[in-house]
């Protein structure tokens, strides 16, 4: 790099920094500002200091939303990442049809979450949903799939399904980067099949697995449409995103809604740090 290039580098970096400042940091700090007010509609603000934060710490509904978000996160990490990894391993080991399977598994990602959620309304509906119609045809009683003890798991299914394909493609790409001579050497040593997968493939893509888990964690914090369309937050399915939406926009209490938004950001950052800490491990470079 020549000495005079630095000013050009800075010049090119400024637009991106400005973009981020306007659309990311400004709204964040505005939320922080609003979290110290009680609002009435869009124009009336009353300073209330830390009252919103005090309310937040004693808000049972926020506690429940947090736990539901964590439960959903567990399902997403176990099943979304797990299924994606499994599918990637299968597809990586076949000799033909890779393109076909990539397309098939990736397809749900490009369908909007709302459309998938509406589809599952028709699956789960108690009176005439697909699942209950099948059950009745087989002579069984109808089941309320969105009942209090099942609703969050029922909502987790389309949530998981929606993004399995995305992580599948990430994993498949990661696997394709492993040099083939590693596998040839392993074959000479007699390491094949499942043993190869666990001793070689998975360790070598561990850094990608960490990235995917982090994406899954932050993605779960943004889950909204599946809850909103399928259950509206009832039957103990309220998550942080839907709760924040209700407080800010349905209740029109922007002060408290902003406070919850700050909580979500802090919670998300802490979770990401925790995940990185737990996943920290010597990475193999090649």
């Amino acid at each position, binding site marked *: 790099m020549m000495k005079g290039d630095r000013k050009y580098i800075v010049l090119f970096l400024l637009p991106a920094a400005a973009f981020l400042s306007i659309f990311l940091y400004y709204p964040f700090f505005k939320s922080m500002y609003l979290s110290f007010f009680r609002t009435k509609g*869009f124009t009336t603000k009353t300073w209330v200091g830390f009252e919103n934060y005090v309310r937040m710490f004693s808000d049972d509904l926020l506690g429940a939303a947090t736990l539901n978000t964590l439960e959903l996160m567990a399902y997403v990490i176990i099943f979304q990442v797990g299924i994606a990894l499994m599918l990637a391993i299968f597809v990586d080991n076949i000799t033909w049809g890779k393109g076909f399977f990539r397309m098939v598994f990736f397809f749900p990602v490009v369908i909007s979450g709302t459309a998938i959620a509406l589809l599952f309304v028709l699956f789960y509906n108690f009176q005439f949903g697909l699942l209950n119609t099948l059950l009745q045809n087989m002579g069984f009683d109808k089941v309320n799939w969105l009942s209090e003890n099942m609703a969050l798991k029922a909502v987790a299914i389309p949530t998981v399904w929606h993004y399995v394909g995305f992580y599948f493609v990430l994993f498949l790409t990661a696997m394709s980067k492993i040099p083939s001579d590693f596998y040839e050497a392993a074959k000479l040593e007699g390491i094949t099949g499942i043993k190869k997968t666990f001793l070689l493939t998975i360790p070598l893509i561990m850094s990608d697995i960490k990235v995917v888990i982090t994406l899954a964690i932050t993605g779960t914090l943004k889950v909204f449409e599946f809850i909103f369309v399928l259950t509206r*937050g009832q039957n103990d399915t309220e998550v942080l995103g839907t709760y924040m939406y209700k407080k800010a*926009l349905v209740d*029109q209490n922007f002060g408290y809604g902003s406070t919850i938004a700050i909580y979500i950001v802090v919670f998300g950052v802490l979770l990401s740090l925790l995940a990185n800490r737990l996943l920290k491990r010597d990475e193999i470079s090649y």
Partner: protein
Amino acid sequence: MKKTSLTIVSLILMMSMLLAACGNNGGSNNTNGGASSTPSETTEPSKAPEAVNLRVFSTFGGTDAAREAFQKAIDDFTAANPHIKVENDVMSANDDGFRTKVNTDMTSGNEPDLLFYFVGADAAEIINSGKVVALDEELAADAEWKNGFAPAALDFTKHTDGKTYAIPLTGFFEGLMVNKKIFADNGIELPTDWDKFKAAVSALKAKGIIPLSGPFDQSHYLIEHFVLAAAGAEGQAKALKDGVDPNWEKGLAAMKEVYDLGAFPEDAATIDLGMAANYYSQGLAGMILEGSWAIGGFSDDVKANTTVLPFPAIPGGAGTGKDVVGGFGTGFYMSKAAYDDAAKKDATLALLKHLTSPESIKSIATANGGTPAAAGVQPEGLPQAVLDGFAMVSEATSVNSPIDSKVTPETFNTIRANIQPVVTGKKTPAEALEEAKAIETAAK
């Protein structure tokens, strides 16, 4: 109370006159009602009028029954006024985001010229911040326009400061919609009092029919009717101002009572209003609490078999069994920006007068079954259920605007969020209402 009584009497008289007119087959063929206010052809101006673009924000879009009638009213106006273009910006009022869009537009300098929106608490912010103008002077200056309205309709849409900001178009009633065929086929008496209502719930449940189709998350109509049936008009109107009325608690307790009898759908917690109406429309439910606008969306068979009854009084409370939720809960507001804009003011007022003329009101009321705000207007071809609803209102001892126009959104939503805990016994009605009261107090 005197003013309220006069309002109610006026409304009842208007309804009675309307019913008499509807029932009179030998009536006059004159369908113009009051004096015509169709914009007359202006004489050729010496100079072409300046082009004007107006934006109207309304809920007459998507699947709304009056969508076509409303668009036609706009098209008629633009045909008579070629220099005026009208953008019809629409969004469904069932969407919680509707209020947000209105508030966002009104407070960020993106006001529509005419806004069709709720009256009452929802509009307080845009009125208090001066975004819309009082139209009392314009009404006083145009006797033909003003006298075209039923006085009760204008009274209903007055703001708490006594001024008229919203010009009504059609009103509504809410009530207990009953599928008479289901009741007759199963030998069940119509729910004309509380004991008959409970008996109907139990009998329908035993037959595998959903007794009362209603959602818990969007429990607006459940709350409205159970509270009114227990608290009566006065108790309902006080909202939570003087603390929690014990009769409100009785209303929520009654909801739990019928829940325990199996009144609600198995999946009541997670369905929305649309799905609840769908159950009733498909004949899966014997009853539903809904508004007059819902009747048009029922299947033809169910519509033909539907009647509308007032929700029965809850024993021990102050309800009369003839208290009705209804009136005129929406209207057209004119933005101050349009009023202050010399180029737009006259065009906007002309459009407003056209949209709220007896002719426009009639075509919209015919389409959506709403109560015409115009005096003497007779919608044609209405389903019997709508006529039954009009009869219910005309016989009502009180006509009440909904609770959610009397408390803050967060207060009402707190009650909504507590319906499922209350009916399942996780919370007492007193706890739920105290929680809402605390929100209401904090919001003032």
